[in-house]
């Protein structure tokens, strides 16, 4: 979790081992429109301490799926302009299937359970909290 601008190159540089033949990278970027309204920017709020722990748990789960691949995942908080990176995920693994699978797993879990909210700002100066996903509480998740 960071309030600084995300540098995709720096995230990519944190993965990769001599035995890894595949690197998958995903970036989430602030769009300039949503449901027909022109967007001027996005404000991300997070429950910082919990989000940090939950992101680490998601990455650990993904690492298990990727058979010990290397993973770097960063989520931005604060005010972002259109075009800025809100989330970046890099996974290296021996083969592409595990790398793609782990990167996909991380972004889907972020959307389901990371305690982060976004308020969209529109060009007409109005702002709204976006509808989100109700986290499903699984008793077995420790």
């Amino acid at each position, binding site marked *: 979790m960071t309030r600084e601008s995300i540098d995709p190159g720096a995230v990519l540089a944190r993965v990769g081992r001599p035995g890894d033949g595949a690197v998958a990278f995903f970036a*989430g970027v602030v769009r300039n429109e949503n449901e027909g309204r022109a967007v001027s920017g996005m404000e*991300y*709020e*997070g*429950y910082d*301490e*919990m*989000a940090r*722990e*939950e992101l680490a748990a998601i990455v650990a789960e993904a690492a298990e799926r990727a058979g010990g691949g290397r993973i770097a995942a960063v*989520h931005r908080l604060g005010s972002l302009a259109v075009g800025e990176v*809100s*989330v970046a995920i890099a996974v290296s693994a021996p083969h592409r299937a595990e790398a793609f699978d782990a990167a996909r797993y991380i*972004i889907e879990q*972020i*959307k*389901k*359970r*990371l*305690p*982060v*909210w*976004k*308020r969209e700002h529109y060009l007409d100066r109005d702002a709204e*909290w*976006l*509808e*989100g*996903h*109700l*986290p499903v*509480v*699984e*008793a077995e*998740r420790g």
Partner: protein
Amino acid sequence: MAVRADRDRPVDITVLLFAAHRELAGGRADTVVTLPERATVDVLLAELRARGGEWASLPSRAAVAVNRRYASGDTVLYEGDEVALIPPVAGG
């Protein structure tokens, strides 16, 4: 096990609020709820909804985190727990 009412001591729980939930509390970042001893997450949610007004719109199965982990409705709350009401999440 029967619990004698005269031994019960109310517990003050500070509930952290985020995003749209802050609007329920007039912009405040937390709200204090007094609950009976050994109250659960479900009891907390019922208590908040019973405040009426905007609070009545809180879903009965809203997500709650206890000590920074999602907690099921039957989780018992203790004094000093870090309790947070988690609105539907929208990261990414």
